């Protein structure tokens, strides 16, 4: 067995908590191993110092000590009667407030997202994009506004535009016809 392993048992050997057989093994080992013997002496020497340093005649609890602790506990309990419900309420309010904040964020997002594209069927003919690009010159600004929406969801943006401008487009097409 390795030496380190024996060192492992020396604390328990000193406190006499080892089984008899192991105690005998440790003693046999100590008789041949200088390093472990030195460790045993270190334990005994430091024990001497610590025990010599033991303080005598320290303070003892006064007669009213237990009563003082009970009074302090009572004060804490009274203070808790006021503050704890507030704390509990605050803790309960946290999930509600988080849910409310999330709801507000969703509403705000919906509010500031172009609503023109909201009610459009998901799939439309992208050929309408060409029609959109052929719009008269005055519609350029509106095109810029929609460009972001187009980049996000081309089909829906174009469909929305077509629906909004359907009468004008129809009139334009009729005008082109001979």
């Amino acid at each position, binding site marked *: 067995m390795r030496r380190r392993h024996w*060192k*492992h048992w020396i*604390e*328990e050997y000193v*406190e006499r*908590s080892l089984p008899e057989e192991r105690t005998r093994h440790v003693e046999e080992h100590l008789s041949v191993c200088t390093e472990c013997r030195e*460790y*045993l*002496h*270190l*334990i*005994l*020497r*430091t*024990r*001497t*110092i*610590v*025990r*010599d*340093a*033991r*303080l*005598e005649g*320290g*303070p*003892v*609890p*006064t007669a009213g*000590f*237990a*009563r*003082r*602790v*009970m009074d*302090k*506990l009572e004060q*804490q309990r009274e203070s808790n009667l006021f503050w704890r419900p507030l704390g509990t309420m605050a803790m309960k309010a946290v999930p509600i407030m988080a849910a409310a904040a999330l709801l507000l964020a969703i509403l705000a997002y919906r509010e500031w997202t172009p609503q023109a594209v909201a009610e459009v069927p998901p799939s439309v003919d992208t050929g309408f994009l060409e029609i959109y690009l052929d719009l008269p010159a005055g519609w350029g600004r509106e095109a810029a506004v929609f460009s972001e929406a187009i980049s996000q969801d081309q089909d829906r943006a174009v469909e929305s535009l077509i629906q909004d401008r359907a009468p004008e487009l129809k009139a334009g097409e009729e005008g082109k016809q001979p």
Partner: protein
Amino acid sequence: MKSEVVLIRRCQDGDSAAFEQLIHRFERRVFGLIYQIIRSPNEVDDIAQEIFIKLYLSLPQFRLDASFDAWLYRIVVNQCYDFLRKRKRTPQLSEADLSEDEARYIESLASVTQPQAAEMDRELEVRDAAQNLLRALPPKDRMLLILKEVDELTIEELSAIFKTTKSAIKLRLFRARNRLKSVYLRKRRAIRK
């Protein structure tokens, strides 16, 4: 032991009188241990009050099949450690503060090499010198050595108090003892200069 369990169960049920009894039962031991660790008599009462309040608040979590002593010791050790950390008063030994008594003590220790020599004279100056050696250790080491050698707790009990393995406790003891040895050797060198 059985009466202790009954008392604790009554405390857990909110019986204040039972807790007052529990305080009476353990107050002396708690005072003694705090004093050994912090070594400042004026602070003992306040720290003990905090310990018993923490004990009261933590009792609902205490399992009746666990060791109450280890539970209480853990609270004491943590509270004392908090106090020592706040106070930050861990003076390092300087060779200049050696008194003649300390020098004599340290010289006498040098001859202690056999177990039977552990029984030494308990003169006041011996204690002061030993206390100076012990005071030079970090609070955690000091607490561990006091619990081991003054309160005579076993490795198993220490592992329950510090919530760690027996091997870890042995290692910590090994390091603490070696630190104490270093302080002692430093002082001894200073004497011989």
